[in-house]
């Protein structure tokens, strides 16, 4: 589904991602871990099309197409979803209007008619329940005044609404209490099929108890320095990153 080859990403001329190779297939869950500042969010945002990140080298194909040539909206409409580490507050844009526009733009792209008002509301309700997002939040402006945890839940809600083929969840677990973590993980698991894939970026093994990854990668100083099965997360939890740093330096 996603094939990344020798990807280099820079911002303001400074190289942050320094040659990454990664292949994600349908049905798989990949976890990316790594110390602060190693470039996890940079990779995620660049894959979603944030223009400030410059691709200086390498290729990325998504479902066989050149991802790097697409606009952010086309990436989304082709089935890519980014759960933001820091979701943006947008005062004045209501959640309902935001989701209605997003859904209908995606439908238009697929040549489908806009969703009727009642079907849309039904979908909203169904997905709200799935991720335990309080209904009152969908009456507010996008993320405005949401608590940290509410913002993260809202990301999962949006994912559920848009049902992407590939979801990249950037620290969607941080800021969540244990109950919320379970709900969110449960949401991800329920949405999981053999046709979609997920990349979870996290600092905590805890999440991986609920969302069980097929692969765990360690990103360090802009490179994937270790890839292994889910047991790697346990080792990291216990030993931290120092041993990997020692190994690579």
């Amino acid at each position, binding site marked *: 589904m996603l094939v990344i080859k020798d990807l280099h990403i820079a911002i303001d001329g400074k190289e942050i991602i320094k040659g990454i190779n990664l292949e994600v297939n349908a049905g798989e869950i990949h976890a990316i871990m790594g110390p602060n500042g190693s470039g996890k969010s940079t990779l995620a945002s660049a894959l979603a099309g944030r223009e400030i990140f410059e691709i200086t080298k390498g290729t990325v194909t998504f479902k066989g197409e050149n991802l790097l040539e697409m606009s952010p909206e086309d990436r*989304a409409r082709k089935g890519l979803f980014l759960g933001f580490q820091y979701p943006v507050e947008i005062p004045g844009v209501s959640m309902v209007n935001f989701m209605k526009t*997003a859904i209908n733009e995606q439908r238009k792209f697929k040549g489908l008619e806009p969703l009727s008002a009642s079907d849309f509301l039904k979908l909203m309700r169904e997905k709200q329940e799935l991720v335990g997002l309080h209904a009152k939040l969908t009456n507010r402006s996008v993320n405005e005044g949401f608590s940290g945890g509410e913002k993260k839940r809202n990301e999962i809600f949006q994912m559920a609404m848009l049902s992407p083929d590939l979801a990249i969840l950037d620290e969607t677990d941080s800021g969540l209490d244990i109950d919320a973590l379970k709900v969110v993980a449960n949401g991800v698991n329920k949405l999981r099929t053999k046709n979609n894939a997920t990349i979870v970026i996290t600092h905590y093994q805890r999440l991986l108890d609920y969302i069980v990854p097929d692969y765990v990668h360690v990103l360090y100083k802009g490179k994937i320095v270790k890839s292994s099965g889910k047991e790697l997360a346990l080792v990291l939890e216990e030993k931290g990153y120092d041993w990997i740093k020692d190994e690579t330096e």
Partner: protein
Amino acid sequence: MDSESHTYELKNEFIKLYQQNADFLNSNSGPLMNEFRPKAFDDFVKLGIPTTKNEAYKYTHIEEYLKGNYEVEFSVDPFRINLKEIFKCDIPDLDTYVVLMLNGSYYYDNQMPSLPDGIIVCGLNEASVRYPEIFRMHYGKYADTATDGLIALNTLFAYDGVFIYIPDKMTIEKPLQIINISYSFRNLRITRRNLIVAGSGSSCNIVFCDHTLCAHNYTTNSLTEIFAAQDANIEVTRIQNENSLSSHISHTFFHQEERSSVTSNTISLHGGLIRNNFFARLNGTGCESNHYGLFMGDDNQHIANFTYINHAMPNCTSNQLFKGILDENATGAFNGKIYVSKDAQKTLAYQKNSNLLLSPAARMNSKPHLEIYADDVKCSHGATIGSIDAEAMFYLRSRGITEKEARQLLMYAFAYEIINKINIEVLRDRIIDLVDRRLRGELSRCNNCHIHCQ
């Protein structure tokens, strides 16, 4: 020729125009209106048309918009057209008392069915004769001709407009909708003069809609004096939607007595030049005075808002919020003043102007001004000029929303804060639709015109 001599020529043109028409104006208007003309004449001769040297008009080249070839009509209904046939209000669900104004005059065929008892709505000219007591007490009392050449000019040529009187303790549930229509077969100068008197404890909601129905040049100088007696509650919404050739200068004076509450909300959708001057005098304790504005400009439009909130008495609150969205070569200006006299303790006065510039050529000048002589007050002002937030833009696009649609959502979100202050729900919904279409560039200037201008 430099602009000084331009203004000088223009001034002489107006003086000549007055001298030629003084007899007509004086013989067709009530004596209570005519009384004001000699002083207005002297003041205009002294002041002339304001230039950019005048601090209040620093960013607006008024003379550029006023010169040119124009006709002036003083008689009411030069052709007795059936306005109702050519004009249909675009707000069908809005249940209002509709008052049509044609080229500054009260339309002869306005029917005001079943207005609640004691409420008066009629032409200003008619009111000056039929209701001399009310007229004498308020006309020309708030708009001082010695302060601005354009106020003097309006008073000099004042002929008609709308007159509204709400008796004490009276509430009109339905809004009064005053539709100002410019319609002619040639370029026209229009002078309009309104007077609104709200008795103590009364409450009303007034909507002004400015429309041009033809593709001619119109320059309008309109002035509205509004008196809010104690405990009165007045909400004024104004929708400005005129053609690109039109220039509209409006002056609105609010005179507020004890505990009165005034909210004005001005939505500038379209026009060549729009210059709005707002004055509020908080003349009693415990007043509330809110002044909101939303303006959208593109092409070579110029939109300027000027405010002067005079806190003359203690314990009053004023709020000002003006937001602008400027695209292409549009220019805008906000020039706002809060004046707090030394007796006006416990004043709360806030002023804010935020602007969104969509193109590198669009320009905005924002100049807040506080003049405070009392010590126990809370005042603040602020201005921001920015472009569309890139992070918000990316967030929306990352959900599959096109760049165009995402921009639309963000512009609309910016505008919504002002629209949301309108209390009449159907009007608010209608304005939401108009603003949405305006921001998409789909708003037809003649959407409610059933005649075809060539």
